[in-house]
């Protein structure tokens, strides 16, 4: 059974100027145990999709199912947990008091001491939330998400606003938890996070899914390989096989082409170009290219 399934989901928000479509016919399936990055620029619709997966809001059209049932049923059964982007805490409570209050809302006895140890909160147990740093509060949110021992974890921009060390620490802890076989979906606009931590990336822009695959598959979907060479005399009217666009870098020129091998061969044998360099596209350019083509209306 799929862990999360969105079928032809549409979400419109009413505004003064007419409804705004935040999610536009999204189809999405996550199997149990997958670790998936939900990548997209701000306003792409990631948070709206997440809200629907958690039962916080309903789709305008289409269905959202978690473990084959409604999202709210999954929340009540304690099978899905989420780390909110920010807020979600009461300043006057201590870390331990916060955990205790939320734990009373879930059935069964929950071992808070072990939970605090796993998330490195034991030394902070009696510290008020208002005195906790951003990274410490995020650890608390993580612990809160783990209280019902969920099978699915949804992280909404979990490291936004964290410095490099806090971020690394967060992912180390998350990695440990995910080793238990949970399904993890995290929304981010940090490409490196998506690359380092996810098995699969779903790219979303303007409410539509633009790409969905492994890191390598996405990279290949993007701008393709580029070839650069030292050729100060080159001008755009000198035609080269299969070139889609180019960029000057001082005395070097970089060309993007569908068939980088053919271009490289041509450059080496038939032109004055020297000092050739062939590079695979990185996720950055793939991402930029895929989201750019959406804006201009062309198909990816």
């Amino acid at each position, binding site marked *: 059974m799929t862990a999360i399934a969105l079928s032809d989901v549409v979400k419109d928000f009413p505004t003064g100027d007419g409804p705004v479509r935040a999610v536009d016919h999204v189809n999405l399936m996550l199997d149990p145990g997958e670790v998936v990055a939900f990548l997209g620029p701000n306003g792409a619709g990631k948070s709206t999709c997440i809200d629907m997966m958690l039962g916080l809001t309903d789709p305008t059209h289409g269905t959202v199912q978690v473990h084959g049932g409604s999202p709210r049923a999954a929340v009540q059964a304690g099978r899905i947990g989420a780390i909110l982007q920010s807020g979600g805490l009461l300043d*006057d409570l201590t870390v331990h008091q916060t955990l205790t209050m939320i734990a009373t809302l879930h059935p069964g006895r929950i071992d808070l001491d072990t939970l605090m140890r796993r998330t490195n909160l034991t030394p902070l147990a009696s510290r008020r939330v208002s005195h906790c740093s951003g990274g410490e509060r995020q650890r608390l949110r993580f612990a809160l998400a783990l209280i019902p021992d969920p099978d699915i974890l949804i992280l909404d921009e979990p490291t936004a606003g964290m410095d490099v060390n806090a971020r690394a620490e967060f992912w180390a802890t998350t990695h440990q938890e995910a080793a238990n076989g949970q399904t993890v979906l995290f929304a981010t606009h940090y490409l490196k996070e998506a690359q380092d931590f996810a098995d699969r990336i779903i790219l979303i822009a303007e409410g539509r899914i633009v790409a969905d695959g492994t890191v390598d598959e996405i990279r290949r979907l993007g701008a393709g390989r580029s070839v650069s060479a030292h050729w100060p005399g080159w001008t755009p009217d000198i035609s080269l096989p299969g070139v889609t666009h180019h960029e000057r870098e001082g005395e070097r020129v970089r060309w993007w082409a569908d068939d980088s091998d053919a271009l490289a061969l041509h450059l080496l044998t038939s032109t004055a170009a020297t000092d050739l360099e062939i590079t695979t596209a990185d996720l950055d350019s793939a991402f930029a290219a895929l989201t750019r083509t959406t804006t201009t209306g062309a198909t990816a």
Partner: protein
Amino acid sequence: MSTLINPRYVWLDFARQLRMPVNLFFTIILPTVMYVVFGVTQDYATQATLHGNVSAMMMASMAVYGAVTATSSLAGTAALEQQTGWRRQLALTPYTSAQFIAGKVLMAMSVAALPVTVVLLTGAVTNAELAAWWRWPAIWGLCMLGAMVFSLYGLAIATWFRSEEAVGLASGLLVVLFFLGNGFLPLSGLMLEIGRFTPAYGLIGLARYPVLEGIIDPDATDPLWFLAANMGAWALIFALLTALGLKRGTARQ
């Protein structure tokens, strides 16, 4: 969860309020001081009324004022929970909106019991008099009933306004409502006619009923059914507003 109230959560929520001494001070001490000033120290305080004296009437008024001040401060805490996203955190648990409302009402009433008890005790040891012993717990009970209705008032404001506005609105409006409800100075003429339909009128009339049985002045009496209908109607209105306000609650704002 099949039960409406989660006792552990409500207890923890109540304990939170006890850790805010400044709020507690105003909730309990202020009505007590007002009772002493308007009730005990004035010459007319010992004048007899139908079932007690004027002091007892002021005591009932200030007790119910303390009770509803406590429950309307619910506006502040519930609104704050909305703004900090705590309600979104709660939405990620089995806790339902119905349980949230029930829990907040119960917690607010527990806090409201404090000023009512303190004011009544103060009255008992000073110069408030009632014709029969059972009229004391009757006043207490009627004040608590009023507190329950006005916790819905606090919730209704909380679910529609942002935090800082909510607290100011709730307490400021309460003073006006109490005045219109004949709670501070006796009203007459047009003001009284308008005041009879405002939210606090039934509340105050009922709290004073064991002392006055609805007497306003030598010529006019409010029947019990009217006071009860006033409070019942406003309870329904506040509940409806709360339900509507909660529907917009958990989506991102």
